[in-house]
């Protein structure tokens, strides 16, 4: 019987399959528990970005770009699809946590994001795991300028070079 493709989504640390990029950086000196990313402000997310994202992602729900439609449902205006700011938050984390590579991320969309809003991105290292397969766990957030949370996320990031070196599958060779 063919094994199922589907399964529980957890960090699996499939380091041996990742792109081989040598990262000669001691990241454990860079990231420590409690470290915070420098907060970054973005926005407002314009209608043009919403439409570009709809085209690229295939999310064509008119509630995100048709003002009349959104108003007919009682909303004050269109609102941004969750995964657009989610994707922005993922890129923010990728940049912050480099040279580590994010291999797992979970988003919770707490509140709607409106096109006029300014948004603040942030993150904090929650735990550094320094065993033979090191990785870090971080919390991420996107909040409005009044401090209310819009998106919460958790992610893990791994060191490709260290994990590759310690990968038992690699060590089996020769």
């Amino acid at each position, binding site marked *: 019987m063919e094994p199922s493709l589907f399964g529980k989504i957890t960090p699996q640390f499939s380091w041996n399959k990742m792109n081989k990029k040598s990262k000669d950086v001691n990241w454990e000196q860079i990231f420590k528990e409690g470290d915070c990313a420098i907060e970054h402000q973005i926005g407002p997310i314009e209608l043009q970005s919403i439409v570009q994202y709809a*085209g*690229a992602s295939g999310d064509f729900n008119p509630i995100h770009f048709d003002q009349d439609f959104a108003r007919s449902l009682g909303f004050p205006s269109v609102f941004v699809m969750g995964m657009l700011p989610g994707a922005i938050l993922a890129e923010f984390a*990728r940049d912050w946590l480099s040279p580590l590579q994010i291999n797992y991320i979970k988003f919770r969309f707490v509140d709607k994001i409106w096109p006029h809003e300014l948004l603040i991105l942030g993150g904090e290292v929650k735990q550094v795991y320094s065993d033979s397969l090191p990785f870090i766990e971080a919390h991420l957030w996107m909040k409005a300028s009044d401090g209310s949370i819009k998106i919460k996320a958790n992610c893990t990031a791994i060191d490709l070079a260290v994990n590759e070196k310690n990968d038992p599958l690699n060590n089996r060779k020769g």
Partner: protein
Amino acid sequence: MKGTIKVANSLESLFIKAKPLLGTELARFPWAVEEGQVTQFQKSLHVDGVDFVSKREVPLAYSVSIGLWGLPHYALLKNIGLDVKNVVHGEQSFELIEPLQVGDSYVISQKLSSLFLKESSKYKQMLLLTIQSVVIDSHGTVFIRKNHTSIQLEQNE
């Protein structure tokens, strides 16, 4: 009435209709990582200064987002009787097993992995459906797994 999202059927009847579909794999569909699409993606996110395309790399955000609204998924929601225009995004988890590459073709396989009917103080009821998507190549190698929870709201009158 202002502020009311009309749902054709009660969420309870939609829940009963959807329950037998739990665990069913939907039709697989192809997904090509096209250069133009990745470029549009970068523009929509204002990710400047990184030349992903010439290195054949795919932005993390692209991998996180693709295939969320594939036709089989859309058809499933419609088939159950959800008002797709009024479905909002609740939660998403994503696991990258192997990076995608620009120019390569993949297949996306999906199933309805969980279904819940919830009551809340803000809404009369909420129907939560989670679709799991798996991105594979032609050899069946798994590149990405993701869960995507859609919520159909039924607001208080």
